[in-house]
């Protein structure tokens, strides 16, 4: 774990910086009549796409900027990079050989790595929550802890799902590039399916296939914890962990 501690600290610093930057912009937007007029000018479709519904109140700003895209994205990027590093990265750096020569089962190796991923993702999510919750009011951003937690939970589950997917692909292929590429592409696709479903009629019934929809598409900031949807995410994560273990156990580690 120590080897990756430095990476974790780097990510923490990044999230802190990002949060503060976003928060500092807020006061200038808050109550700015001119800005509201600008928003009204945007066509209806575009507003729905980027969720520009309520830019100037606390929840609206959070939802729009931080959570319509950036925060879950940041967490997901972290998780995807880490996930690929934990399996494929170890293989590419050739440290896997000595490790698997010790009397540990492959299953245990994967589970422990996944645990590390989960804890790290949780830690970063918590940091994000604390930052926004504590420093938000300083920037006149007032969101209750409950709605904030609901959104963070959705983002964290989303990130963990794709991090686990990245781990699984890395376990099965040994390629960090492939793991990251596929996981990222899928994440973006699911984001698009979820947001475009608001505009495109035939896409709407397919929303449920998108993990983004289950995480954030139901607007947890306004509607609170969505237990059913989080359950779907949890189930997906469990399935992905199983896949990661199976792929890792079947793998031929040749050079």
């Amino acid at each position, binding site marked *: 774990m120590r080897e990756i501690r430095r990476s974790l600290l780097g990510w923490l610093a990044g999230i802190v910086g990002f949060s503060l930057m976003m928060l500092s912009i807020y006061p200038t937007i808050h109550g700015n009549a001119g800005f509201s007029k600008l928003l009204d000018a945007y066509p209806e479709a575009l507003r729905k796409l980027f969720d520009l519904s309520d830019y100037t109140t606390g929840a609206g700003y959070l939802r729009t900027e931080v959570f319509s895209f950036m925060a879950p994205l940041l967490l997901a990027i972290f998780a995807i990079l880490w996930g690929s590093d934990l399996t494929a990265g170890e293989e590419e*750096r050739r440290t896997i050989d000595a490790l698997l*020569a010790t009397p540990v089962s492959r299953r245990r190796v994967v589970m422990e790595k996944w645990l590390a991923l989960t804890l790290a993702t949780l830690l970063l999510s918590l940091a994000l929550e604390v930052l926004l919750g504590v420093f938000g009011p300083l920037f006149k951003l007032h969101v209750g802890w409950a709605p904030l937690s609901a959104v963070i939970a959705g983002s964290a589950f989303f990130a963990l799902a794709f991090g686990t997917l990245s781990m699984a692909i890395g376990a099965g292929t040994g390629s960090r590039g492939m793991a990251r590429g596929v996981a990222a592409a899928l994440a973006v696709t699911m984001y698009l399916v979820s947001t475009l479903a608001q505009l495109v009629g035939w896409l709407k019934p397919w929303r449920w296939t998108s993990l983004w929809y289950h995480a954030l598409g139901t607007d947890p900031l306004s509607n609170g914890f969505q237990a059913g949807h989080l359950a779907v995410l949890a189930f997906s994560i469990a399935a992905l962990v199983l896949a990661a273990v199976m792929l890792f156990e079947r793998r031929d580690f040749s050079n």
Partner: protein
Amino acid sequence: MNAQILDRNDQDPMTTAPVIELDHVFKRYRSGGGVRDISLSIVKGEVFGFLGPNGAGKTTIIRLLLDLIRPNSGVIRLFGLDSRADSVAIRRRIGYIPGDLGLYERLTPREILSHFAYLRGGIPWSAITPLIDELSLEIDKPVRTLSKGNRQKVGLVAAFMGDPELLLLDEPTSGLDPLVQQQIHEQVRRAALEGRTVFLSSHILSEVGEMAERVGLIRDGQLIAVERVVDLAQRSAHLIDISFASPPDPNFFSSLPGLRKSNVIGNQFHAEVTGDLNPVIALLSNVQITDLSIREPGLEEMFLTFYEQSHE
């Protein structure tokens, strides 16, 4: 040609049950290569050397033993246990140096080795320090600052810690300076003296010849021959190179019974002769020569000799 498998078959089988058993093992990679029809038996306390050029299949075999890769067919058993089903139990008794050692760059050797000591079932640090001291290994600087030799030493300690019953060493001395090579040879020798089994691979003939009792030659994925080093030496030919003052008669040595090969290039005469060298000296006493060299063949030459002989 069938591989010849020699066992120490003059003893009670209970005490000499094979530590390693490969039975008609096949492994084919999608990109080609791999190993074909490998059958081999290694008994307890043996030092066995695997010799062959790069890509011949030495690393493949070692990785098959460790369950890092799985065979297409065939049986692999270590300590009588199945290499895949009982992999964890087997690995509890094995030490391994990979051919391409990778270490966690940001950690120090101390951190890495204590981690491995824990994974190997809680080997006390006090048991590891003698080896660290013997190798003069710097353990408190991060790995990325270490030279290749020192990295390999870390791998060495990781493999030898806890005195495992079986050592699998894949090209253990490649790229190392002679001093470190000697230290590795020492550790292997000590392991053998303690009755532990060593299975090592190399493409360096002298190294295998120096450390191993039995040698297997592998080429293009097949086990071509398995012989005791002692037997090979006895059957192999001396290599004789003579520089004559003037172009010699090509049939110069043809009267010698032990003559296996000879050829002439200009004033140089090359011959391979087995057996007694005295007739050679007798023949040479009557001619004018400017230079003479008689040398022992290297391991590969010994093998080739053996290979050709078995076809006669």
